[in-house]
């Protein structure tokens, strides 16, 4: 390398450009964590808007207007009206709001159940673990929908029946995840060191285990929302759960079935589409949250 070379330009730079390229990296969307956080927050805000709008429109959703029956979607009624002249846009938002709130509540309860059972399994010794694993297998074996039907039947249908049913049926898979996570943490080096240092069990649990398991728990909880909401809608659609005067997505869609053959497609299309979008928004929040919190995928 001549002296003049290094004075003119960094020698590495000039040389680098002349080296043949053997492989070009796959072009990927350049994202940074800001974008991930932003889409997470954006989706959460949209969901909040849906819930609030739904609550505000609840009155309108049940107001019948017999002068505007069975209207196609138009500027006045974006989603059309039903056979009683109720505005489908208002009904859709109100229904979504109900479904989302019940889903959120049920998913939270389910996640807490999962956490408690997972902790018992992972920390309660071999026998407790075997019992829990067996029960998880058992609950996974009864088809989800059948279990939902049985529980809401046992509780005599109604809002309580649906909420409890959804709450009691969504813990098994998260329990498995959390149990594995807690076990891994308990057997890890840092907990062993803490024990050697003579820290109390409570201190170990609070300072080492909780921070370790919490991200998984939060991500698991958020990813439960879409399932809970979809199952709430399904069980309501089948006719369990909510009374027909409460607009819930399941009820709206179930009612629409009688009018499909009459060609009133908008009764089913828009509410269902809105449900799909809502569930996808929850998925966006959950998967972005995982990208932020889960070290395994933090380079993506």
């Amino acid at each position, binding site marked *: 390398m001549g002296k003049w070379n290094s004075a003119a330009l960094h020698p590495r730079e000039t040389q680098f450009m002349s080296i043949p390229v053997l492989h070009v990296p796959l072009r990927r969307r350049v994202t940074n964590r800001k974008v991930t956080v932003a889409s997470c927050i954006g989706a959460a805000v949209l969901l909040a808007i849906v819930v609030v709008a739904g609550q505000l429109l609840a009155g309108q959703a049940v107001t019948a207007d017999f002068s505007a029956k069975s209207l196609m979607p138009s500027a006045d009624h974006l989603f059309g009206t039903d056979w009683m002249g109720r505005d489908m846009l208002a009904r859709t938002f109100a229904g979504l709001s109900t479904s989302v709130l019940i889903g959120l509540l049920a998913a939270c309860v389910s996640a807490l159940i999962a956490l408690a059972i997972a902790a018992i399994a992972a920390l309660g010794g071999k026998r407790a673990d075997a019992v829990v694993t067996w029960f998880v297998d058992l609950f996974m074996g009864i088809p989800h929908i*059948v279990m939902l*039907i049985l529980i809401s*039947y046992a509780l*005599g249908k109604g809002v309580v029946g649906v909420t409890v049913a959804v709450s009691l049926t969504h813990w098994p898979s998260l329990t498995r995840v959390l149990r594995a996570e807690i076990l891994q943490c308990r057997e890890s080096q840092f907990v062993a060191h803490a024990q050697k240092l003579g820290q109390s069990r409570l201190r170990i649990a609070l300072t080492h285990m909780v921070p370790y398991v919490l991200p998984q728990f939060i991500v698991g909880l958020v990813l439960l929302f879409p399932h809970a909401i979809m199952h709430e809608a*399904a069980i309501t659609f089948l006719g369990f759960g909510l009374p027909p005067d409460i607009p819930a997505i399941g009820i709206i869609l179930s009612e629409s079935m009688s009018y499909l053959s009459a060609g009133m497609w908008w009764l089913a299309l828009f509410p269902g589409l809105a449900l799909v979008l809502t569930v996808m928004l929850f998925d966006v929040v959950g998967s972005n949250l995982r990208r932020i919190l889960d070290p395994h995928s933090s380079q993506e």
Partner: protein
Amino acid sequence: MARFILKHIVRLALLLFAVSVIAFLLISLSPVDPVQANVGQAAWTSMSEAKRAQLAEYWGVDVPIWQRYVNWLTSTLQGDLGTSLRYNAPVADVISWRAGNTLLLMAVAWVVSGVLGFTLGIVAGVKRGSIVDKVVKAYCFVLAATPTFWLGLLFLMVFAVALGWFPIGFSTPIGKAAADVTLLDVAHHMVLPAITLSVVGVAQIALHTREKTIDVMESDYVRFARARGMGTWEAVRRHGLRNLALPAITLQFASISEIFGGSVLVEQVFSYPGLGQAAVTAALGGDAALLVAIAVVSSAFVFGGNLVANILYGMIDPRIRRGEAARG
């Protein structure tokens, strides 16, 4: 191997027993009194006194629950599942005919979604980051958020109502005697429900296979195969397929629970006379005997599926097969 299978069968029996206890318990908890709820039903009015007595023995509020369960279990083990009040027929008859319908529907959806999902997953995984991959991922993402029953409604609106290609309901044409029903009739009525179930089912197996394919493509053995001069697709064919098939088959067997759940909804949408529709009718109408039986039978499907998956795994994977043999 025989011991392996026996162990699993004992486990299956235990789980089914537990399911029956849970189902029975939940149904007994219900404020709906099956006897009262069905007093007006044809089945009740035409029932003999003896039958009414038996009904009270199983479900009457006056008898303690454990005794009712023992009664139910005893006669069930003797092959008598009781009478369905809603269908006015022995539960065994109602279930066996409907289980056939449901199994047919599920089997078609199971195979179609399995094959389609497996193929899409492999293509997407091998061509990771390409347009194909993005389309498959988007499809799975949207379908995972789509309720089965709404998709069914959409298909019903488009293909049955608007286009008129398919009937709106029932597994056979109404008013046709059972003997006259042709295979074509059955197929015609099953197409939409089966497509709905398949389309939803594809998402899970495709995403899972995609992930596994990416793992396999990055695995040491595929890299080594390629280092020995094998092309990408040849490596997939020779080494990928056999390693991907095992987890896919396991997942597909494990997803029977979800396919059954889907079929409950789809049967409701398409008025397809299967177990799912009967379960809804039974639960809405307080037909306790039928409901318990369906809970047990549908769980048997799921556990049976898991059992088959475990046994298949043991037979196919040499790491397990030879391990079992070595242990005696």
